[in-house]
């Protein structure tokens, strides 16, 4: 997939309570969760961002709770992908499983300023800063995880696996 959008920069240790506060966890409706995306990190975020924009953050993005509501909220808000120096491990799994595109690249995070226009090719793991002309390469996914992504997420992967075992 190729995504194009403007960068929204965040610091390190953006936790899942900042991405989607627990006060909104009384529903799992993506649209409702999307309306409150990043609310406690930046209360105005949803008023400022536009569909397709990209979150760019430092280390340990998505730390804290296991709530899958976090990647669901980001995706439903219209964010096309998240680029970070590193991801907390449960968030990493949840993003893969829910089909939110994530890319790990410290160079890209350092080389992107707020508002820069970014183009991301998730198949190649290529991140282009169209504002500066710089090109970065994300850390590639292990083959096993690429297969889950290619099959459309964990549920399709498991469904196929169980079907082939039953057959």
């Amino acid at each position: 997939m190729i995504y194009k959008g403007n960068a929204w920069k965040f610091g390190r240790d953006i936790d899942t309570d900042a991405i989607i506060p627990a006060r909104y966890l009384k529903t799992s409706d993506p649209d409702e969760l999307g309306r409150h995306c990043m609310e406690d990190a930046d209360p105005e975020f949803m008023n400022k961002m536009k569909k397709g924009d990209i979150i760019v953050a430092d280390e340990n993005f998505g730390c804290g709770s296991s709530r899958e509501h976090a990647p669901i909220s980001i995706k439903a808000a219209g964010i096309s992908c998240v680029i970070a120096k590193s991801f907390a491990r449960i968030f990493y799994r949840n993003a893969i499983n829910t089909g939110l595109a994530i890319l790990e690249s410290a160079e890209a995070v350092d080389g992107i300023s707020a508002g820069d226009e970014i183009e991301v090719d998730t198949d190649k793991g290529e991140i282009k800063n169209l504002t500066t002309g710089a090109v970065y390469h994300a850390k590639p996914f292990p083959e096993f995880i690429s297969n889950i992504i290619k099959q459309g997420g964990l549920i399709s992967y498991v469904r196929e696996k169980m079907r082939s075992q039953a057959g």
Partner: protein
Amino acid sequence: MGMTITEKILAAHAQQSSVTPGDLINVKLDLVLGNDITAPIAIKEFRQIGVEKVFDKDRVVIVPDHFAPNKDIDSAEQCKMVREFAYEQDLTNYFEVGRMGIEHALLPEQGLVGPGDAVIGADSHTCTYGALGAFSTGVGSTDLAAAMATGETWLKVPSSIKFVFKGQLNPMVTGKDLILYTIGKIGVDGALYQAMEFTGEAISALSMDSRLSMCNMAIEAGGKSGIIAPDEKTLDYVEGRAIRAFTVYGSDADAQYAQVFEWDVSDIELQVAFPHLPSNTRGISEAGDVIIDQVVIGSCTNGRLEDLRIAAQVLKGREVDKRIRCIIIPATQDIYRQAMKEGLLDIFVAAKAAVSTPTCGPCLGGHMGILAKGERALATTNRNFVGRMGHPGSEVYLSGPAVAAASAVAGKIISPDSL
């Protein structure tokens, strides 16, 4: 080459003779867990897989503990959905309000987890069960859905960090202080993707309750799991409780560690984590004058009997400051009942603390003690992120039960020695 306890448990559950950090393996699970927040999404995803039944009705546990007893209509709908799924699947281990406790206190107490188990739960604090010598880790709802269907999950074998705690513990210092100290030293991503193995004479000296509260917060250092090799105390705890046969593993002398830390616990005093990260820790002697509005003693970290006994020891014959709301939440019904028998609840109520039925409630800003803008709480919980207990303009400080109880009396963060 030798293996760590974590590598041995994972190898056994992947039906391999050995594993190496970085290996991607398929693991057979002894138990999978969900709650009223994470199970609703997992159930929807489970329906998409196309199987009728969970892999084993004895090994899928659902505990409505976060927004239960139902805090509002939406939460009631979520609890109703997981209840109906539990009935439909005839789950042996669904715990209704009245039987329910906070999941990570309840499962070890009920013997549902034992040494050598491999467990995943759709709750980040599932790492708690490492205190029993099990491998356990938190995942999201979709991973839970897949595990409910297959009884398996994929995992990357983590490298291990060894933490050696030497020396004699200072008075009233518990597992909570040791883990806050650890997170303060290595940071909130200091153990990212790694297993945290706690050893040393000071760990041997810790009660099971303290060990559970230490492993509980491995996730706050980014850890995949926390683990303590079983010893006599572990076996005393699990014997008579464990509902399945268990296996005791230990690390080989030549096991490989990514890092080794060695600390003398006689240097570790009672700890407090300042807003807004659990790594922002200070010794109580350096806490300064922090006026607070609320104290919460409870949660999957510190709502066990040892915690309540310590709180009662401090609160006995004293009263909570008039300005303070002190909320005490025994983590399970068994703990509640034992606290009643020991007279602890009487001490709390006499001290003008509010005692609640088990719930995660205020820890994640759910209910039972939400903070207004500008308010400050000291809690024995595990996270002090922005907005964690209520308004984004409120603050949460973290400590163990001794400091929390003393601070409720003083109205500010204080050591029990200063009362």
